[in-house]
């Protein structure tokens, strides 16, 4: 279990009442270390079709101003959906490689 910053385990007095939790905090939780394979993106080949982006279950395709700019390796679990969905031919703009541990 890895997090961006060390998780401060709050006491009952410090926690908000009743199983209430602030929105979007999962971004601090690192799931990138689940990967056994890693997507490698070639910006030169990318046609910004966004097929990878819309299919990614982990919100890990980084997009700025309508263009793909990279992959969020803090959260990408290496499922390979992005590479599979990439329509670029003959060589895809995203290919999967073994994760170096």
């Amino acid at each position, binding site marked *: 279990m890895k997090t961006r910053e060390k998780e401060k*385990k*709050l*006491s*009952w007095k410090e*926690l*908000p*009442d*009743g*199983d*209430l*939790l*602030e*929105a*979007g905090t999962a971004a601090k939780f690192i799931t990138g270390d689940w990967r056994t394979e890693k997507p490698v993106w070639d910006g030169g080949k990318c046609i910004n079709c966004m097929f990878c982006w819309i299919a990614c279950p982990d919100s890990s395709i980084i997009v700025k101003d309508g263009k793909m700019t990279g992959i969020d390796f803090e959260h990408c679990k290496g499922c390979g959906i992005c590479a599979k969905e990439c329509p670029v031919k003959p060589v895809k703009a995203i290919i999967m490689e073994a994760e170096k541990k």
Partner: protein
Amino acid sequence: MVLTTNPKGKIVAKTGNEAMAEAMRQIAPDVVAAYPITPATEIVQIFSQFVADGVVPTEYVAVESEHSAMSACIGSSAAGARTMTGTSSQGLALMWEMLYIAAGLRLPIVMAVVNRALSSPINIHGDQSDTMGARDAGWIQIYSENSQEAYDNMIQGMKIAEQAKLPTMVTTDGFIISHCMEVVETMPDDMVKKFVGEYKPERALLDVKKPYTLGALDLQDYYFEHRYQLADAMNKSKQIILDVAKDFEKEFGRKYDLYEKYRMDDAEVALVIIGSAAGTSKVVVDELREKGVKAGLIKIRVFRPFPHQELAKDLANVKAVAVLDRSDSCAASTAPLYAEVTSALFTHSGGKAPKVVNYVYGLGGRDITLEHVGEVFDRLVEIKDGAKVGEILKYINLR
């Protein structure tokens, strides 16, 4: 409860159900989600008519089960709306799962519960098995002796729930109170409205600019802390209940406490009892007093949080006590109220405690008469005078 007439009040004849529905009309919650069940049906039926007539601004959600009733109440309360419901017996049993969740999420839902026996065998009459089974769900439990108390407790209950951030059930005995016409003093709408105040939750789901997640998965790291918060809130709610009672007395003239002490000052023999049978028993206490027997009675109003320390103090000087339970705990050594009372005495009386016996009575609406209560007192007097206690748990009027 001490009956005092407030010059602003209105004396009316109401059944327990009508009195509770009237309190709900005056509270005018934002949402009521409910499913009918005998003998509580009337409460939400009367209330539905208020909605249909535009008397209240409430959204009435006529759900398809009690489980869904409590689920919808949870959604509504979490959304930031003042939320109420009502049920009984099997309905409460079907809600079981959601009772714990309402408490764990700290949602101030107020529920009118008309106490009724639990199946099987199916029975529609009054006993307290239903709410006693829910006693550890994290709900504040306030019991009523009559329609007046039911009305007053509903109004106080709303304020208590919201201040304590705890769901609260207010109960009456099925048919005995729910369907019995009594004299009730109701207060003007504006006074009730002012007393209850506006509901301003700290967080609400509909406050979309401050989003949060409610009902997250809590594992070993956090569950314990959240459950402790609940226990702590329950303990602290005792003071809130007392403060609200004080405010209520100031506004409306009727005095409430965690329990009512009836002729207890010098009592040597006493009953501890909950609900409508307290009324019957008070008559016996009065008769005994006339005969020179120092009899008294404690009527528990707030069962959760249970007033352990207070009760131990008030019972310490009594010689013999009978705890009367309108529910049973199969094969536990005693019934629920007895267990609480003796635990209180064992823990908080400093070694000075009365002899205590337990009676289970009135299951499934079985009558309890003046004679039955008289016999209990006869035994207490014998015990006080040195007779052996004998069997702790006895059943009243069981063939």
